[in-house]
């Protein structure tokens, strides 16, 4: 694992979408952002505020228009696509709203695939790690199943296992609970909390106040800029306890004040 304290550092990060000749839509406007190792950060904002774009740009999946993003001190804007892909495979994990697994592989094979591709560990180590992760996320019994034989909540757990198989420095989540009911959503947040507790940095994009209130730090975006930030204190383990209710209310109030 890298020992620098800052995992992500974006400076003057700007992203414009080209709509046509001489017609560009600015989506990120000179954003500065620093995420320290082990932090659990969520990004909120209205639709079109630029939160997903921020996530895709800081992970090197999208090419920024200007500015820079340092990942573990390495400037992503200077790296070619294969090197970026390698970093995403080895050092980053991703969870999406819709998990999109390879339909011609079993659930277990979907999880180990990234591990095999990474090539940092032997086959046995990869498989042991996958078994551990499946055990932790409670999906061991469906390992050999087809992906069509799993529920939405189970598939999201598979996604988490896939994201964690190479023990990444950071997990990015784009609305990871967006397609789940509140119970399943809470369970997924419990799992991500566990990941965070083990020292992994987590950055989520979400609309859900309940989800955001369990993270340590909430960034609020509006019109392509981070306009406000709130530190909520250490990770909220019990999402249903009275202490957490108060924390959730506090965040909601803050968001109302910001016009969300």
């Amino acid at each position, binding site marked *: 694992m890298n020992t620098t304290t800052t995992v992500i550092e974006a400076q003057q990060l700007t992203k414009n979408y080209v709509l046509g000749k001489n017609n560009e839509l600015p989506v990120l406007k000179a954003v500065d952002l620093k995420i320290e190792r082990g932090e659990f950060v969520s990004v909120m904002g209205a639709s079109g505020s630029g939160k*997903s774009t921020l996530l*895709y740009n800081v992970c090197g*999946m*999208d090419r920024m228009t200007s500015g820079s993003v340092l990942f573990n001190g390495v400037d992503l804007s200077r790296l070619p696509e*294969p090197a970026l*892909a*390698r*970093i*995403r*495979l*080895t050092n*980053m*994990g*991703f969870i*999406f709203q*819709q*998990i*999109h*697994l*390879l*339909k*011609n*592989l*079993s659930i277990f*094979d979907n999880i*180990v*695939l*990234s591990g*095999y*591709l*990474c*090539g*940092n*560990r*032997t*086959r046995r*180590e*990869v498989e042991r790690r996958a078994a551990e992760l499946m055990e932790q996320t409670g999906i061991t019994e469906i390992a050999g199943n087809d992906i069509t034989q799993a529920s939405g909540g189970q598939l999201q757990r598979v996604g988490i296992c*896939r*994201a964690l198989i190479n023990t990444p420095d950071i997990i990015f989540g*784009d609305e990871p609970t967006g397609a789940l009911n509140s119970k399943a959503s809470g369970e997924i947040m419990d799992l991500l909390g566990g990941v965070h507790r083990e020292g992994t940095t987590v950055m989520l994009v979400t609309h859900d106040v309940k989800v955001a209130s369990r993270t340590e730090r909430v960034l609020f975006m509006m019109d392509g800029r981070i306009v406000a930030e709130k530190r909520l204190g250490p990770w909220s383990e019990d999402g249903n306890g009275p202490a957490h209710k108060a924390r959730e209310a506090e965040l909601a109030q803050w968001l109302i004040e910001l016009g969300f």
Partner: protein
Amino acid sequence: MIADRKGSAHAEGGTTMMAILFRILRRDATRNRIVNLVILALVGMSAFLLASGGALIVQLATSLDALFERAMVPHLVQMHAGELDRTRVETWAAGQPLVDEYQIVEMVSVDGSHLVLGEWPTTEDHGVMDISFVAQNERFDFLLDGDNRPMLPAPGEIGVPLYYREARNLAVGDRVRIDTGSFSREFRIAEFVRDAMMNPSIIHSKRFLVNPLDYAALRSNLPDTEYLIEFRLTDASRSGELATAYTEAGLPDRGPSVDHRIFRVFNALTDGMVAAVVVVLSLLLMLIAVLCLRFTIVSTIEEDYRQIGVMKAIGMGRRTIQRVYLIKYVALGGVAALGGYLASLAAGPALTANITAFLGSAEPPLLLRTVPMIAALIVCAMVVGSAVLVLRRVHRISAVEALRSGAVDGRLRRIGVLPLRTGRRAGVNLVLGVRDVTQRPRLYALVVGIFALCAAIILVPFHFHSTMNDPSLIAYMGIGRSDIRIDLRQTDLVGRRFDEMVATVAGDPQIARSSPLVTARFTLVGDDGTRESIAIETGDFSLFPLEFVMGEAPRGEYQIALSVLKASDLDRGLGDSLMLLVDGEERTTTVSGIYQDVTNGGRTAKAPLPVDDESVLWYSLIADVQPGVDVAHKTTEYSRLFHPARVTDLNGYIEETLGQTITQLAGVVAAAIGIGLVVAILITALFLKMVLIKDTARIAIMKSVGFSLQHIRLQYQSIALALLLIGVVAGTVLSNTLGERAVGLLWSFMGAAQIRFVIRPLHAYLLLPLLLAAAVGVTTLFSVSRIRNTSIATTIVE
């Protein structure tokens, strides 16, 4: 240490990746059974046909080489009828440095009316073949047995040309009887002989092989003899030079002179054409297979667009993603190519039966195994190559785009075409179906293209077959259309007999019109003063007009018409001049027209020139009977009257000359119709499968708003039939234009440059399209039955 561990993990990662790819393959094989089977079948058929075509060509070439080598075919043959001064020819030949060996072969001519073959009910009176009896040659030009060894019949035995085995249904042990009235002799068929020079039906001379003792008996009882003056050269490519030297020496030349290249072309013709058609078919199928493959891959990429985006997002490299998809096509291509190759090995003996029968089989050469294998590998490579090309579009997929939009093409469909209100009368379902075709043109254009190719696969061989079976085929044989044709070969007093014949026919009240045509040898003076001999048909060409590709029939003694190949050999076009020696004087003639001719090697000429009796090669007379007169009856009457002239009616002439080719072609037509239908069925199944997968949500919505299963099926059936209709129209146009040209190209090697398809409208425009429509309709019915499983609930869950 760490580096070592990492290295081994990487190496192991490679093998585990392979294991994962195989697991992907295994699951895909069961999930997409129909699509995979269709592609497997298409590629397999294409590999089978290409491998078979390759095997045919190799077998043809090697058998031909072996036959020519074993038979020791002469490089130049001058035929001669009449008196022969042997010593003069031998003295001349001995002095030619180019001549390696020479021989004069004497043949006893037997009139068809004196010959009965086996149990055949009639004599060979009506046959177009000139029949001769010979003894085995000593030095070269051997007639070979089934094992390609010079055949040596015992006394009383006979070797019959292979042509007659099929044409007269003969078997070893059958009898052959010559009976002239004053002399008769019977032979037992000991063998069917391969005659490298005269095997093909298109050559109107056939040699029967008998024991030298029997030959001597025939020689002393039958007066007509002909000679083949044969040469083997030290350099076979210089046969033209020797032919010119021969003519210039004024040696006996009453008969055509032929060189070994013509024998090769004629021997290769029928099977060569079949091989060419098979190869063309396989290429068409390969094109269809590649188009289908593209369609399948593009659909899969569209379907998996988001999945590919995710794979990219989580850091899988482009190559790895490509491999995930490519593995299937490598496997499909490999299995299909192997299957096609093995099938071609199994079908090989049947496919090459005609070649091995007529030309014999050479030692199975390495090529016969390797060429089909290479052909199958080419098909496999085409499949994998096209898959790689199409899969390049994976590179263009942006992970972010895919994750955001989840669809390949966010553009809205055109909605203006054919508003739904027009459907009140025509039926909403029909309109919805047709609207869908106009709204997704790219998707459907491919299917239309494939249907068009299917129609062409069926129609082109069908048109070709119809053309070959039509009396208008005569237009390509360099003769005018007539009811009866009489050919008179060189015999004593032939000139007088011909004059009598012409007078008799002209005076026959049952004959509407007749025209004598005399083919004679003239000398052509080249631009550089070199001289070569040329056979020119003379007469009045206005009575039975020929079809000309360019220009018109020669009029007057200063015009000449040339066949397409002759014009090309001489490098002359319409209006160009040609210097001839006529009556010993130079005469400049102008090319007045160019016509098509597939007879006599495709190299002939026609001009109304004065003929000197000495230079005549053969005499012909063509005639039309009066309306109501029975042609067959007249033919028989003339055969008797003008004995030993050969009298044939037009259909008989075509049948005997091209019958064998037509029969083989009929087989190809049947196969083509079968292949076209199978491909149409496969494609319809594949296409509907893919469209129904794409349209899962659309169908679910339609069902939820109250469309019945029957309604939805009707929509897809109208789509499939609308596409078929467009495809068949396009295919018909394609067949009648490009198809005609492609067949023309095949035939141009024989001498017909501009073939015009004879189209049987009932079959071509109604029955065959109906057959295709039925096949597509039934397949559609079966394919759309899977719509039953789609419901809005399952779609929403998905």
